[in-house]
């Protein structure tokens, strides 16, 4: 007699579409998913422990390796936490340059999102187009700090070097290119009926679920919750800029994609304002060569491309942090994976991995 049976499919850690080394144990009933359990730790490097034996200044390059496609945002989070701990006032120009870099990196990170999403949907061409445009931003980073991904540009007290004319000019060129770029994405991805059919009404995260799982970043905004730390906390120079927070309607894969597309637009908007009003002045505060923050602890969070990135630093008064904890958005967002995949098809699971946009460097820390 014929009978059917559920089976477990181990997707990853070596699989074409698991974004690094994420392993997901998918329980399948035919092609229907009845459960998905993420298994992590393949990229665990112990950055929190490493930081305990490095001085504050030496810790900064390690934050590059957390979320390696938006290194600038990680630098920013760590540096701001240390500045809060040590009461360092950052010069205005440095704040603006930080915003420019962080927003450029947000766009670059969303390029990776679009690229990997389209690749997972089966259109390798889309990936190349997104990465082609990301390359322009990486070239900008190469100009300003000499590295493309692991920037280590934002430092405690300011930035590593002043932004050159060349950088500002090329950034302006890129910002002018953004509308054409988004138009091309609209024509090849957004307007495409197959994309729409693949993504609309799949892997829905409701408002309640998004709050329940403490999600953050574009993922929670796609569910329609207005929660953007740039707007709430107005850290750094973000208070000076006028920008909107794009929100999704129902929290399906399509909304998560559209929210990120619109965020590219808003980031470009912020960069434009920052470029127009870039103040003159020093790019680095006076930071003692041997940084010894007073005893105590500080928690500071920034809006990383993937959500709420927090650094909790405990100082014992020495040159090295006593304890650093990193609140990584990716690992928290991953908790929703099971809810997203349940009841969907195997192909939707791949889309769900892509739209939740976890980065294993950050998940495993």
């Amino acid at each position: 007699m014929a009978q059917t049976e559920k089976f477990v499919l181990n997707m990853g850690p070596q699989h074409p579409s698991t974004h690094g080394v994420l392993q997901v144990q998918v329980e399948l009933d035919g092609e229907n998913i009845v459960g998905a359990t993420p298994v992590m730790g393949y990229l665990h490097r112990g950055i929190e422990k490493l930081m305990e034996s490095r001085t504050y200044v030496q810790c900064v390059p390690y934050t590059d390796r957390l979320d390696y496609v938006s290194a600038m945002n990680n630098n920013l989070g760590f540096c701001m936490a240390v500045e809060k701990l040590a009461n360092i006032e950052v010069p205005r120009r440095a704040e603006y340059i930080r915003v420019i870099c962080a927003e450029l990196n947000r766009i670059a990170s969303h390029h990776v999102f679009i690229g990997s999403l389209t690749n997972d949907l089966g259109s390798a061409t889309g990936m190349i187009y997104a990465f082609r445009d990301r390359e322009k931003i990486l070239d900008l980073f190469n100009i300003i700090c000499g590295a493309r991904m692991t920037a280590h540009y934002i430092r405690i007290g300011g930035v590593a070097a002043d932004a050159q004319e060349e950088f500002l000019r090329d950034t302006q060129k890129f910002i002018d290119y953004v509308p054409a770029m988004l138009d091309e994405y609209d024509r090849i991805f957004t307007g495409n009926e197959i994309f729409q059919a693949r993504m609309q009404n799949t892997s829905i995260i409701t408002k309640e679920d998004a709050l329940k799982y403490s999600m953050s970043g574009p993922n929670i905004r796609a569910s329609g919750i207005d929660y953007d730390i740039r707007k709430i906390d107005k850290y750094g120079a973000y208070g000076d800029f006028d920008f909107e927070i794009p929100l999704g309607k129902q929290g399906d894969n399509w909304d998560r994609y559209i929210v990120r597309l619109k965020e590219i637009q808003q980031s470009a908007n912020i960069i434009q304002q920052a470029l127009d009003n870039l103040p003159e002045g020093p790019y680095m505060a006076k930071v003692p060569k041997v940084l010894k923050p007073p005893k105590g602890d500080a928690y500071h969070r920034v809006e990383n491309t993937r959500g709420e990135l927090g650094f909790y630093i405990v100082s014992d008064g020495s040159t090295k942090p006593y304890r650093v904890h990193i609140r990584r958005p990716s690992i928290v967002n991953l908790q929703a994976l099971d809810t997203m995949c349940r009841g969907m098809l195997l192909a939707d699971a791949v889309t769900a991995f892509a739209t939740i946009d976890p980065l294993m460097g950050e998940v495993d820390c």
Partner: protein
Amino acid sequence: MHSGILYSTAQALREILMSLVGVPLLVDIIMTVICATILLLIMATSALVFTLGERKICAFIQVRIGPNRVGPGGLLQSVADMIKLMDKEDIVPRGIDKWLWVLSPILLLVPSALIYAFFPFDDGVILADVNVGLFLLIAITSQTVLPFLMGGYASNSKYSLIGGMRTVAQMLGYEVPMVFALMGIVMLTGSLKMSAIVEAQSNVWFIVLQPLAFLIYIVTALVESNRPPFNLVEGESEIIAGPFTEYTGMRWALFFLAEFSNLMCIGILTTTLFLGGWHGPDFLPGFAWFWIKTFICVLFYQWVGWTFPRLRIDTMLSFGWKVLLPIALVNVLLTGVGIYIYNIM
């Protein structure tokens, strides 16, 4: 009765052989062997050409240069690929169903090779111009389901199994609209004979008379040959490579060969059934027109494949059964009405 360079050459060859051997049966056998060899060579060459073509076109669409190291402009890249594939270690995974696993790639190649016998390459140049040509052709192409399923089942891998099941679902699902779409052509021609179908297009190509059938055929052909956006069988971001996940080296190359042979098949079929086969203005010989049209079709299929994302299995199946099949049936009805009106007039 037939004209064209290829046909005259074949006739001349036959006469020479006749004078040499003298036994008609033996000459027939020799001629068949020669034809079969040429067809197999065409198939192998198509794989070589299309490997490079696919990679170059994909690169051009993706604003890249593409392979450019081997030979001038990367022309010999596919040769290098072949040598690499032959050179590779033949990994036989543990726990497989050995016989099915080994047979699957070989069996897959058989139908892909067989259908070349029914293609009219030029006026009178057709290996087996049987009365039920189109019918046989469809019957043989649908045999590709089995090797895929065999490979998927025998590999003892969950990815392969899912891929195998998908093959069955999609190939069977799209066979039906395809047959009904081609029905219109058969109604117009009044024959299943391939040469008759081409002959019927000497004045008007069937793409003009059967635009609906043409669109349906394009979609179903992409599905039947596992081309993107319908390459669910090997959907590499979901199930890695479907039935060929566990194959390496030459075994994998056979799948590869079958895939490119299928790609050329659908190009040839589109040409033969809708684009007038070898018909064309007189300044070029028939077979040249045939190949030009085929290549344009293949380029079109590759262009489509490299632009669109993959469909999901449920969307694809419901599209086949709920959209394409009704349209195909309507097309049959319209064709019937059209023929009736034409006959009255």
